[in-house]
C-alpha cells in the first residue's frame, strides 16, 4: 500500500542497485546524454569542528555593540529583523552561517531561471495572521481586503492552474487524489474525511480559538486536540475506519510533504493540522496557495533586502554568553578566518534548537533539554531541462506528484512565469524517512552525486520515459537537518513548549519552536522574539 512507504537504508541501496549504471551515468557521458551538476550541502564543517573541540583564533578588534544580535538568517531570524524594524529598533545585526540568507527557504538562480532549494509556497494567510499579512502587503503580494476582511492576493502570486496532478497507473490525473478507478468505498471515505476536516475547522474551544490555527501558537490547547498528539496519524486513521488505500496514500503523501515523516511517524495532531489549519472562510475551502518561481526564496530575498548592511553572511556563531547584564556573541567570519565579538542588549537565537546546547555557555545550568527535537534529512534536486517532455495527458502542473513513489515529485519553477514551452527547471523533493534521522543523515552524506542523479532520474522516468535526453544539468542539495519532525508526542511535550521561553535576554525564534516546519511558524516565532527585545 502506498501509504506505508518507508525509505530505509536497505531499500535505498536496493533501489540504487536496480538502476543500471551504464544507462545513466558513465564517465562524464550519461548513456549518450551529457549533463553536469553539483552536489551541494549547507556548511556543517564549521559546526562539526567546533563540536569536536576546535578553538577559533582570538578576536583582533574590540567587540561591536548592538542593541540586538540575531543568530541565524533563516526566515525566523529575518522575521525578527523585520519586526525590529517595525518596532523602530534598527540597531541590530543578523549573523548567518551560510554565504546567503534563507536557511531551508533559500533559492537559486542560473541561466535566467529562479528555483527553490527548499520551501516553495505559503497558503494565503487568514485574516487574523496580521503580521504575515502586513509583510505580504509590503511585498505587494496582498493588495487589498474583501468586504468580509479576507485578504486579496494579487493574481500573479496565486498558484496558476493547473495546480497539481498525480501520476497514477500510467496517467496524469488532475488534482492530488487519484480518482480514476476509485471504488464507491474509496470515494465515500474521501468524502467523510473531508467532512470531518471541515468539521474540525469550524469548531472553537472555550476561549474561542480554532482547534488548528496558523500560527500554531494561536491554536487551541484543549485536551481534545492535545490528545491527538499521543497517537500516530496512521493509528488515528484506523480508529476512524479510514482504510481506503488511496486516502491513506493521500494523507501519507501530505505528511511526507509537510513534515518529512510517514503517516506512521507523524502525530495525529500534526496530520490533522495539515488539513484543518488551511480551511478557512464560510465555505471552509482550502486557502489558495501563494507561490513564486524561486519559492519562498522570494520572501527571503525581500526580508534580506530590508536588513541591508545589517546582514552578516558567512558568520559562524561559536559562543553566546550572558555576562554583566549583556549578551556576548562570538562569531567566526569564515571569509577572513577572523573572530568577531558582538555585545548586545538582546540576542535572538534563530538557529535550530539542537545547536543551542553547543553555543550557549550556561545552557547546562538552565536545566533545559532539546534532546527530543529531531530533524529530518531531505534531498532537493534542481533538474534543468532543455525542453519539456512530450505529454499526452495535458501540460505540466505546478506540483507534479508520482503515486507510490518515495519522492514527493517535482514543482515546475517556470509555472508562475507563464512560460509553458521550452526549457525549464524542475525542483524534485525527497525526504529521508528513517525512524532514526541520524541514519538518514549518514546516508545523505555517503551517497555521491551520481547516486543521487540515478535516484532522481529513475524516479522522474516513471512518469516521463523520454526525459533523460532533455536533461542539461542536475544540482543536488543535501539538507541534513531540514525540518523539525512532529513525531508522536513531540508537539505538546514540555520540552517543545519551554523551548520558546527566554533565557534572560536570550530569546528564541525558529520554526522548530512550533514543532512543525512552516514559513508562517518561523515568521511568527521571529515576530514574537523581536517583540521581547524591549529597549
Amino acid at each position, binding site marked *: 500500500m502506498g501509504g506505508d512507504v518507508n525509505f530505509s537504508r536497505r531499500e535505498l541501496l536496493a533501489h540504487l542497485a536496480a538502476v543500471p549504471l551504464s544507462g545513466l551515468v558513465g564517465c562524464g557521458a550519461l548513456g549518450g546524454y551529457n549533463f553536469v551538476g553539483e552536489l551541494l550541502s549547507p556548511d556543517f564543517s564549521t559546526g562539526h569542528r567546533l563540536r569536536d573541540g576546535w578553538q577559533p583564533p582570538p578576536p583582533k578588534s574590540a567587540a561591536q555593540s548592538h542593541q540586538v544580535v540575531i543568530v541565524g538568517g533563516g526566515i525566523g531570524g529575518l522575521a525578527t529583523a523585520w519586526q525590529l524594524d517595525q518596532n523602530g529598533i534598527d540597531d541590530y545585526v543578523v549573523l548567518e552561517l551560510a554565504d546567503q540568507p534563507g536557511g531551508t527557504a533559500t533559492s537559486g538562480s542560473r541561466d535566467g531561471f529562479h528555483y527553490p532549494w527548499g520551501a516553495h509556497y505559503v497558503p494565503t494567510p487568514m485574516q487574523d495572521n496580521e503580521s504575515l499579512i502586513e509583510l505580504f502587503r509590503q511585498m505587494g503580494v496582498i493588495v487589498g481586503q474583501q468586504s468580509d476582511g479576507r485578504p486579496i492576493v494579487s*493574481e500573479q502570486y496565486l498558484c496558476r492552474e493547473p495546480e497539481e496532478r498525480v501520476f497514477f497507473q500510467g496517467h496524469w490525473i488532475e488534482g492530488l487524489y487519484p480518482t480514476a478507478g476509485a471504488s464507491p468505498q474509496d470515494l465515500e471515505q474521501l468524502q467523510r474525511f473531508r467532512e470531518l476536516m471541515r468539521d474540525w475547522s469550524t469548531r472553537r474551544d472555550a476561549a474561542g480559538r480554532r482547534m488548528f490555527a496558523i500560527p500554531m501558537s494561536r491554536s487551541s490547547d484543549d485536551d481534545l486536540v492535545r490528545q491527538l498528539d499521543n497517537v500516530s496519524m496512521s493509528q488515528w486513521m484506523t480508529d476512524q475506519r479510514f482504510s481506503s488505500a488511496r486516502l491513506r496514500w493521500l494523507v501519507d503523501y501530505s505528511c511526507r510533504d509537510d513534515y518529512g515523516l510517514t503517516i506512521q511517524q507523524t502525530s495525529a495532531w500534526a496530520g490533522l493540522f495539515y488539513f484543518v489549519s488551511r480551511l478557512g472562510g464560510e465555505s471552509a475551502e482550502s486557502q489558495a496557495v501563494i507561490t513564486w518561481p524561486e519559492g519562498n526564496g522570494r520572501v527571503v530575498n525581500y526580508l534580506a533586502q530590508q536588513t541591508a548592511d545589517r546582514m552578516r553572511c558567512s558568520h559562524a556563531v561559536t559562543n553566546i554568553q550572558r555576562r554583566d547584564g549583556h549578551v556576548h556573541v562570538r562569531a567566526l567570519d569564515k571569509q577572513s578566518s577572523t573572530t568577531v565579538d558582538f555585545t548586545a542588549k538582546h540576542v535572538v537565537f534563530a538557529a535550530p534548537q539542537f545547536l543551542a546546547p553547543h553555543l550557549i555557555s550556561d545552557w547546562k545550568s538552565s536545566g533545559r533539554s532539546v534532546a527530543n527535537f529531531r530533524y529530518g534529512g531531505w534531498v532537493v534536486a534542481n533538474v534543468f531541462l532543455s525542453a519539456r517532455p512530450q505529454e499526452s495527458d495535458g501540460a505540466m502542473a505546478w506540483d507534479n506528484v508520482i503515486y507510490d513513489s518515495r519522492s514527493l515529485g517535482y514543482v515546475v519553477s517556470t509555472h508562475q512565469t507563464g512560460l509553458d514551452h521550452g526549457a525549464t527547471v524542475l525542483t524534485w523533493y525527497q525526504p529521508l524517512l528513517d525512524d532514526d534521522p541520524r541514519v538518514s543523515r549518514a546516508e545523505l552524506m555517503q551517497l555521491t552525486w551520481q547516486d543521487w542523479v540515478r535516484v532522481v532520474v529513475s524516479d522522474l522516468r516513471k512518469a516521463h520515459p523520454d526525459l533523460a535526453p532533455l536533461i542539461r544539468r542536475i544540482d543536488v542539495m543535501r539538507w541534513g537537518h531540514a525540518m523539525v519532525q512532529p513525531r508522536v508526542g513531540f508537539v505538546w511535550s514540555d520540552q517543545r513548549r519551554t523551548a520558546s521561553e527566554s533565557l534572560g535576554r536570550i530569546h528564541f525564534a525558529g520554526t522548530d519552536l512550533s514543532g512543525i516546519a512552516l514559513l508562517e511558524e518561523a515568521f511568527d516565532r521571529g515576530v514574537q522574539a523581536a517583540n521581547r527585545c524591549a529597549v
Partner: protein
Amino acid sequence: MIERAPNYLLYLNVLVIATCGLIYELLAGTLASYLLGDSVTQFSLVIGVYLSALGVGSWLSRYVENRIARTFIEVEIGLALLGGFSAPILFIAFAQITWFRIALFGSVFSIGVLVGLELPLLMRILKEHLDFRELVARVLTFDYIGALLASVLFPILLVPRLGLVRTSLMFGILNAVVGVWGTYLLRPLLSQQSLDALRGRGFLVIGLLAVAFIKADTLTSWTEEVILGNPIVYSTQSPFQRIVVTRNANGFQLHLNGHLQFNSRDEYRYHEALVHPAMTTAGDAKHVLVLGGGDGLAVREILRYPNVESVTLVDLDPAITTMAAEFPPLAELNQHALQDPRVTVINRDAFVWVSEDDRKFDVAVIDFPDPGSYSVGKLYTTRFFHLLRARLFDSAVVTVQCTSPLVAPKSYWCILKTMQETGMDVRPYRASVPTFGVWGFALAQIKPLETTADGGFLQHIELPTGLRYLDRKTMATMFDMPVDLQPVPTQPNRLNDQVLVRYYEQEWGAM
C-alpha cells in the same frame, strides 16, 4: 527457362511496370497542385517533364550493351526505391518551399528516366524469344492498359483509401517485387553472383518500403488526412503545436493541433469582423498590436489603413509566422503582409511578452486560439488583460476573438466578464462565418466608448475600400446581439481559477 515462363506472367510484369510509372507521375502532379496551387500548370509541367524524361530514358537504353537483364532489374529496384519514397520525401520537403520544387522536378525527371529505360530493355530481352510484331503489339497494349488502370484506381481507390504516402510506398513495393520476380523469370540470363546481389538489394528495398508502409499508420499526417477529411498539403510539428494545411475544391484550411483556424474561402468575413470595428473606432491608429494571428490575415486587414505606421505581431510559434511569410498559398492570401516594412514579427509567448516591454499601442487585435487548455486560457485572464492595459494608450481600442457565443455562451460571456473586471468598457458583437457558424468578438476601450445618437459607437473614420464583407451598415448590425445570444452569468477567468477552460471544455465537448 525464359521460354517456359508463361507469357501472361511477362505481360503482367509490363502491366505492373506501366501502372507504377503512371502512379508516380500522378502523385507528383497531385502533390504539386496541392502545394503550389494552379493544378493546370502543375499537371502540365509534371507531365511535360515526365514525358521528356521517358524519352531521355529510352534514348539512354541504347548505351546498355550487355548484361541487359541485370540492368533491367537494377532499374526496377532503383525505381522502386525512388518512386516508393517520392511522396514521403515530397511531404517532408513541403516545409521548405524552394527545396520542394527541386525535390519535385528532380524526382519526376529521375523516375521518368528510369521508367523510360524499362520498356526498351524489356523488349530487347524478350525480342529473341518472341516474334517482334507480336512483341511490340502485346507489350504496348499492356503498357496502355496499365496506364488506364492507374488513372482509374488513383482517384477512386488509392487516394481516398490509402492516402498519398501509402499509395507511393505500396507501388514502390510492387515495383521492387517485379524486380525480384524478374530475377526468377530471367534466371538464365544472370550470373550466380549478380543474382544474389540483385535479390539481396531487392528484398532490402521491399523491407524498407514495407517498414515505411507500416509506420505510415503511426505517421500522424496520414491519420490527420483521414480525420481532417481533406488532403494534407503541408504539415509540420513545431515545438508548440502540430500545424496542418489541407486543401479541397473550396480552398485551403489551417489546422493547429487538429483545430480548424480558418478556411481560405470565408476567412475574410472573420478577419474583417475582427479588425475593422476596432480600427474605425480608434480613428487615427498609428501603432497596432496583434497578439496571436501569426497567419498574417489580421495584419492584412490592418495594413489597409494608410495611417498605420507600425504593426507588431506577437505569435508564439515561428513555424506559423514563417509559413505565413513563405508558404505561397498563405502568403498570397495575406497579401505578403508579413513582408511589409511596417510589420515586426516577434515570436514569444504573449503572456510573457506583454510584461517585458513598455511600448504602447493604439489598437490591440487579439486573435489567440480558443481557450481549450490552461496554457492558452492564461491569455484570457484578468491578469493578462491587466498586463495588456499597461501596454495601451488610454484611448486605445481592443478587439478579441471570443469563440462562438452560440455554441459556447458561457465561454463567450466569461471572456467579456473577465475584460470588464479590469475596468474596460466592453461590447459584444458577432459575425457569421460559414466555416465556423456564428462567431463572437469583443470590442473594448479603457475609457468608455463614445456612443452615437442611434446607440451605435462613434466610428471616427470610414471603412477602407476593398472589403468584401463589411460596410457601415453591416458593421452596425454586428453589434445587435439577437435573442439567442444574450448574456449569461459567469465568473471571471483568473490565473488561479481558470473557469473559462472548464466552460469551454463543457460546451465544446458536448458538441
